[in-house]
């Protein structure tokens, strides 16, 4: 087992004036681990995700990431170029709405190739080859490589977003309700894809969702949030099958077959 986590949040809080977004959240994430963050709308899980993924500055606390070159490093201490580079190389972010994570006016191939070009790829043939490989990997026909994502179904757009993010082989992927807004059968396909990618690439992931069935299948560990605070955390199946906190018990019991 590796002794050092890949990612570590310590006492992260975010407040907007008197309103608390999230409060005093701490956790470690190890390589290859998938962490689920669940809670109802307004529980602070999205605020937390934005804080730890560098899209929002936490009011208090620190977020550390084990960089390839310098070891554990506070993301707040990173310069903006450094953080932006991290976000398009080592990190990935899958948005709930593919429109937020894709360029709808650019072809599927261009969407996948963008991160490669951003890190200096300048060979069209190579870029296109990588793009096709990734389209295949997320089960989008390579015949669609020159089509714009606006012509894709919701499930395809979501898979394209994943391909676009994974093409630079990130080590950590943040996902905000990745299966939200998709049909149940399409969700299943996406879950299967995410699970095998996580296993094959040794990815670590932080998934925010309100869907307990999703975390049951994807997450190793679970954090339950309510009113901005983590009320319970632990092994996913343990938290779901033997919830200790009143709120978690309520959450679990209000779901049909989690």
């Amino acid at each position, binding site marked *: *087992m590796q002794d050092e986590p890949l990612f570590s949040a310590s006492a992260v809080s975010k407040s907007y004036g008197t309103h608390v977004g999230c409060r005093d959240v701490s956790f470690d994430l*190890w390589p290859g*681990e998938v962490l689920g963050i669940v809670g109802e709308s307004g529980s602070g899980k999205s605020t937390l995700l934005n804080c730890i993924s560098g899209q929002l500055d936490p009011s208090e606390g620190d977020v550390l990431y084990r960089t390839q070159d310098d070891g554990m490093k506070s993301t707040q201490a990173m310069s903006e170029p450094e953080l932006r580079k991290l976000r398009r190389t080592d990190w990935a972010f899958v948005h709930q709405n593919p429109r937020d994570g894709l360029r709808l006016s650019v072809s599927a191939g261009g969407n996948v190739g963008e991160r490669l070009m951003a890190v200096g790829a300048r060979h069209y043939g190579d870029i296109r080859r990588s793009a096709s490989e990734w389209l295949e990997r997320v089960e989008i026909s390579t015949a669609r490589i020159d089509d714009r994502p606006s012509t894709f179904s919701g499930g395809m757009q979501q898979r394209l977003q994943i391909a676009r993010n994974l093409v630079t082989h990130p080590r950590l992927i943040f996902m905000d309700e990745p299966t939200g807004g998709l049909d149940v*059968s399409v969700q*299943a*396909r996406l*879950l*299967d894809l995410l*699970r095998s990618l996580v*296993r094959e690439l040794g990815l670590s992931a932080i998934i925010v969702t309100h869907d307990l069935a999703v975390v*049951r*299948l994807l997450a*190793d*560990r679970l954090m339950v949030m309510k009113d901005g605070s983590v009320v319970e955390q*632990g*092994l996913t*199946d*343990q938290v779901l*099958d*033997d919830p*200790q*906190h*009143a709120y978690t*018990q*309520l959450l679990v*019991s209000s779901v049909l077959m989690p």
Partner: protein
Amino acid sequence: MIHVENVSKTFTLHNQHGAVIEVVSRANLDVHSGECVALTGVSGSGKSTLMRMIFGNYLAASGQITVDGVRIVGASPREIIALRRHRLGYVSQFLRVVPRVSTLDVVSEPLLRVGTSEVEAHGGAKDLLARLRIPEPLWSLSPLTFSGGEQQRVNIARGFAHHYPVLLVDEPTASLDGTNRDTVLTLIEEAKARGAAILGIFHDADARARVCDREIDVSGFKTP
């Protein structure tokens, strides 16, 4: 390999006026390498609860549980995950898998997770599926479309794919026909022969007689 000492389990139902239900109290047991031990007792006596605590699925209220040297009570999720991946297997009665994933992949997954090559993992999975008489044309389909008995056999194949040194089995032969029941018992015997420590719940008295070395009545682990 499995050591349970003074373990108790209570459930606090916060949403039912904080009612506290005691399910297991002061349980003690040991399972050694190469032996199979059966938990007995009437339904509701806490057999499954005890198994789940050993697996880390339920939190023990007090006491100590050690599996292959790892202390389960108070262990970090990461330690439990590693233990389950490599050393502690659990064959439950219910198949819980991602929809749409093929049976072959479902059975291979525990092997792939410990780093076995795909070819080898698929080889192992195919052997087990064949032994458990899952017709080959079904291997590429999701087991969620199968009958109850088939699903249970897929679950058993998955549980036995990787050779865990410690194995928990919950009613592995329930609702199986004679031939398949025999195969499952043979799998348990093979695991024992490899030196695995096995703790199980078997309602089937003949099965118990065939594979189990000892029986422990969990009714004794309750506050009178």
